């Protein structure tokens, strides 16, 4: 078995497992071209491809990108003022991001979880007292930047994060702000 793996080591990653790619869908071809330029200028590994038949957009091109850096990709596109109408996974076009929040009230503290990320805030002072969960390397960095800061003054996760974990934290952060503002 190991012998076979070593023989096929060059390409067996293409024959096993899930695709790690995502697709950016735009309204117009011109937006695809602009987005591709912006992302390539930042050194990102993206490709323009034809859309899968399930996606009906009117635009005949999509951009394939490494899904894990979704937050970084969206940040670049937002700054470049070209935003996709849809972000989906190559693996299953019906997959959509988690949209349910899990909220836990500890009395003095409130915790909101979105997907695999949690943020906890002191309800009186709005100090962010903890960020936990996740697995991508921007999580400890984001925690370092946010913990101890006021919820309304802390940097948003999307301004510093790069990955899907950072994106999950952004959603949890937004939900926490919505709840704390009443």
């Amino acid at each position, binding site marked *: 078995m*190991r012998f076979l*793996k*070593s023989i096929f*080591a060059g390409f*067996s*990653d293409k024959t*096993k*497992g*899930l695709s*790690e790619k995502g697709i950016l869908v735009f309204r117009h071809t011109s937006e695809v071209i602009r987005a591709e330029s912006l992302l390539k200028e930042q050194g990102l590994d993206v490709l323009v491809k034809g859309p899968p038949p399930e996606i009906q957009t009117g635009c005949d091109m999509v951009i394939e990108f490494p*899904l*894990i*850096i*979704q937050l*970084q990709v969206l940040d670049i596109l937002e700054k470049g003022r070209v935003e996709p109408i849809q972000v989906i*996974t190559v693996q*299953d076009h019906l*997959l*959509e*991001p*988690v*949209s*349910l929040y*899990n909220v*836990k009230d*500890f009395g*003095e*503290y409130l*915790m909101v*979880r979105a*997907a*695999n990320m*949690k943020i*906890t805030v002191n309800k009186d002072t709005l*100090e962010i*007292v*903890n*960020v*936990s*969960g*996740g*697995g*991508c*390397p*921007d*999580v*400890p*960095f984001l*925690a*370092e930047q946010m*913990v101890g800061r006021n919820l309304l003054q802390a940097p948003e996760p999307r301004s*510093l*994060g*790069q*990955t*899907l*974990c*950072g*994106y*999950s934290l952004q959603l949890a952060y937004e939900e926490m702000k919505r709840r704390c503002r009443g």
Partner: protein
Amino acid sequence: MSWLIVGTVPDEDFPLVRGRIRIDRDFLEIGQHQIKIARGTPALAATACMAASVLGIEPPEALLVGDTGKGSGSRKLYAHLVEAMPDLELAGITFHYLLPDVYWHNQVLWAAQKKSRQPLLVADAGFMYVAKMSGFAADYDLFTPDIGEMCFLADETAPHPFYTRGFLLEDESRVEEYISRAYSEKNAARHLMVKGAKDYIVQDQVILSTVSEPSIEAMEAIGGTGDSLTGIITANLMAGYEIPAACHKAALSNRYLGLLARPSPAFSVADLLPFLEQSIKLGNPR
């Protein structure tokens, strides 16, 4: 034979370093470098180092690099590990916060599997994500998911916990169903340590034991308590315990850590570590 902890620290300027780790008050030391023990891989490594000391064994080694999510540090680490693997004499490797990258994951896994004495492979955090994504989850000895990550393992199409499908809700009463589903799709390691209100220790789909007491609710909110658990498991494996026993004892110890520290949700994992020695002893009754 040594044990290697592999992961990242949240500082882009931190170089790639490999060596025996030490603790100096609130800092983890490796070579000439110091890192604050706050959360993430430094918290895992510090816990493993301190727990090893309590168990009377040598501390583990670590391979660390700076990465704040851009991935260049992770890729540098992956490449180094593939190159160094043939010369490493390792009883086991604990993989932690790394940017998921299927190509490099596969190179690392195959390099480890080429060794005449294959190390035990433990995966947590980002490396567990990519191990599942690669389709080689079953080649691992242990994964340590929480409930959200267990749903991700159970969803055969999800490439990341963010895209876990909505019908797999984070419902702790359905953990057994998620475990079964993850194994049936070959998306689980040989052993699972599922962290939650009740911890599940699983071997080849069979739930061997559960741990639910003592129960300290605030631990769920504290960043790094999953890292401390994986650190204690690592130390127990280094001490020679079989995987199920190492997990069961670590689950108990991590819960005693909470019981002794009496934390609020505002505690950091560093606030818990002064209680580690006693909690390890309580989790390892003679």
